[in-house]
């Protein structure tokens, strides 16, 4: 196999593996931008994966599965929104609870779907003309899932909304200084609820991507820790959707290469590389001054009550 086709397949696989990371990271960026840390990503993803698979196999239409996964995980995330916004509970605890609940529930409910192949999976598409570009064409525009391009489109759209529109200003204001936002007439609770739900919907779609497109089947625990990588990626991306896209693909690229470079570099080191990088970034970012400059929402993890500040 030639060098060229090796590069093509590496890039193409990076996009395929990076897409669920990207989708869920975009959602978590919105939740955290509004001041709500949601450690329930893993749980929301696995609920989405099961919903997506179940609906796709019942209806025979994988897109129904994707949509249903978004809806169900969006509703599922309301548990966290209710606990952390309305009840002002500890966000770390309630997020972890969401993950455990999601993993447990999906394992029990999904039992009858174990070991069943999915007859109708998401079709792979190629983009006419663009796929003809040498190397880049087959690497990026050939035989990919539509969700790959939806992910890229969403990253740009969500960046635009967050930084160029009034809605974005409201979200960031709520995450930075909810008291001031409140005094300006922004409904803090409503913004936070909606942002947590955006996180749930996107995590659900990311999960469905895994179970109806990436690897069409349902297996208990199939997200295998992806949700935790999403949490790290959110910080890695400095809460910016465009950086989130590059972060997700960067991580996915390292993951894909960790198998392709095994003959030359120690497999143990390659396996640890993405996690080592994540830790390094977390250490760098957690230095307070940098955190301010890089855009960590000041009110992240802090519940808001009118009149207490």
């Amino acid at each position, binding site marked *: *196999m030639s060098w060229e086709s090796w590069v093509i397949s590496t890039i193409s696989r990076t996009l395929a*593996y990076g897409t669920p990371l990207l989708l869920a990271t975009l959602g978590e960026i919105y939740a955290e931008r509004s001041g709500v840390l949601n450690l329930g990503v893993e749980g929301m993803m696995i609920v989405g994966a099961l919903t997506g698979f179940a609906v796709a196999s019942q209806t025979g239409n994988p897109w129904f599965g994707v949509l249903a996964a978004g809806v169900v995980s969006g509703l599922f995330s309301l548990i966290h929104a209710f606990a952390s916004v309305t009840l002002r509970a500890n966000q770390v605890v309630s997020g972890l609870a969401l993950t455990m609940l999601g993993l447990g529930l999906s394992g029990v409910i999904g039992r009858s779907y174990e070991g069943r192949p999915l007859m109708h999976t998401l079709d792979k598409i190629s983009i006419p003309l663009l796929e003809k570009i040498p190397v880049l064409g087959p690497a990026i525009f050939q035989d990919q899932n539509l969700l790959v391009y939806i992910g890229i489109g969403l990253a740009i759209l969500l960046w635009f909304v967050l930084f160029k529109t009034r809605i974005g200003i409201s979200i960031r204001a709520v995450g930075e200084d909810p008291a001031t936002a409140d005094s300006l007439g922004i409904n803090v609770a409503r913004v936070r609820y909606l942002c947590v739900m955006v996180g749930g919907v996107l995590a659900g779609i990311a999960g469905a991507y895994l179970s109806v497109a*990436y690897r069409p*089947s349902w297996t208990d625990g199939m997200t295998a820790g992806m949700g935790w990588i999403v949490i790290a990626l959110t910080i890695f991306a400095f809460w910016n959707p465009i950086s989130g896209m590059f972060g997700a693909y960067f991580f996915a690229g390292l993951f*894909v290469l960790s*198998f392709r470079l095994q003959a030359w570099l120690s497999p143990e080191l390659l396996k640890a590389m993405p996690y080592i990088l994540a830790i390094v970034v977390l250490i760098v970012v957690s230095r307070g001054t940098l955190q301010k400059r890089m855009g960590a929402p000041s009110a992240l993890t802090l519940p808001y009550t009118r009149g207490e500040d």
Partner: protein
Amino acid sequence: MNKRFALFAALALVVVLAGAAFAAYEPGTKMTVGFVYVGPIGDYGYSYAHNEGRLAVEALPWADTFYVESVTEGQEGPVIEDLIATHGCDVVITTSFGFMDGTLDAALNHTDVIFGHASGYKRAPNMMTFMADFYQVYYLNGIIAGALTETNKVGYVGAFPIPEVKRHLNAYAMGVKAANPDAEVHVKWIYSWFDPGAAAEATEALIAEGCDAFAFTEDSPTVVQKAAENGMISFGHYGSQMYTFAPDYVVSGQAVNWGSILVDFLQKVYEGEYTAENLANIDYWWLMAQGAVYPEAAPGDPINPLYVDALKAYMIDDPAFGEISAYDLFMIRMAQFGDPGVTFDPFQGPISDRNGNVVVPAGMWLSADSLITMEWAFENVVGAWPGEPE
């Protein structure tokens, strides 16, 4: 006063019941067997296969079974206690390597209870070990892979670079070589028993290197699915349930019958031959001859019928049999492995590793001890091999 008495009575009752539960098993009476699984029984891999074994025990007229699934390694202690105290288990079977120390601790605490542990090496007077090993089956799968590969590159997705997986890989590589001396076996490690994402990308990496036939050690059908997506063949792991994911592309696979070992062992306990005092040297190492493992595509088919013609048409120049088809070689080797007299083993000398060291001298067969500590890589293996001897 009344309250205190009630409490005391309850406590006394618990002690009496617990005492009854801890009494040694009386041969010929009803037996209660508890199982501890590392994964969900619906994983369609390792724990699924073990649960099939439990069902064979449940079918015995004198046996009742209980099981606990998805037990984290290291947390088996309380689970075992519960099986003994609450369910009164006479025999406890634990099935993951990581349960070894916890099982031994429990065995030393409950000298009246009989224990069995799969895949480990620590035993006690009341604790035996058992294993159904796949290496012969991998050798048979390798014959098929070597015959059917068109690129002369065969892939293997390995869980961890430990002796068990290395033994299976080497046996597979030897089967490949027997059918096709020009073929290489490319290996990728994913460092997990269960990680669909890693299994998928490892398969894609092997495809990028030109591989077109896949065997693996991972407890999901991911490799089978990825191979089929690319129109390539694969070998199911832990039984025919993976066949349903790609019936046109799963050519054969490794199937296990844990029930054969469990029923044999428990029968002997039932008859009083094995007790909580004489298990220190009982180690079941069962292979094809005992019916514990066998090649299987779909139930009843060692080879997927779609590929039989191609295997019959592929001719091999074999040192022992001369001109012979891959199909016939597969069938002869399968019969030899199944023969209790043992007339053939892949690990019979002379064998050199890929660094040129003689690992099995001419005329020698590897002992079970050498098999379970294997670190070297066979000559046609390509790729990283952590822990490889110089």
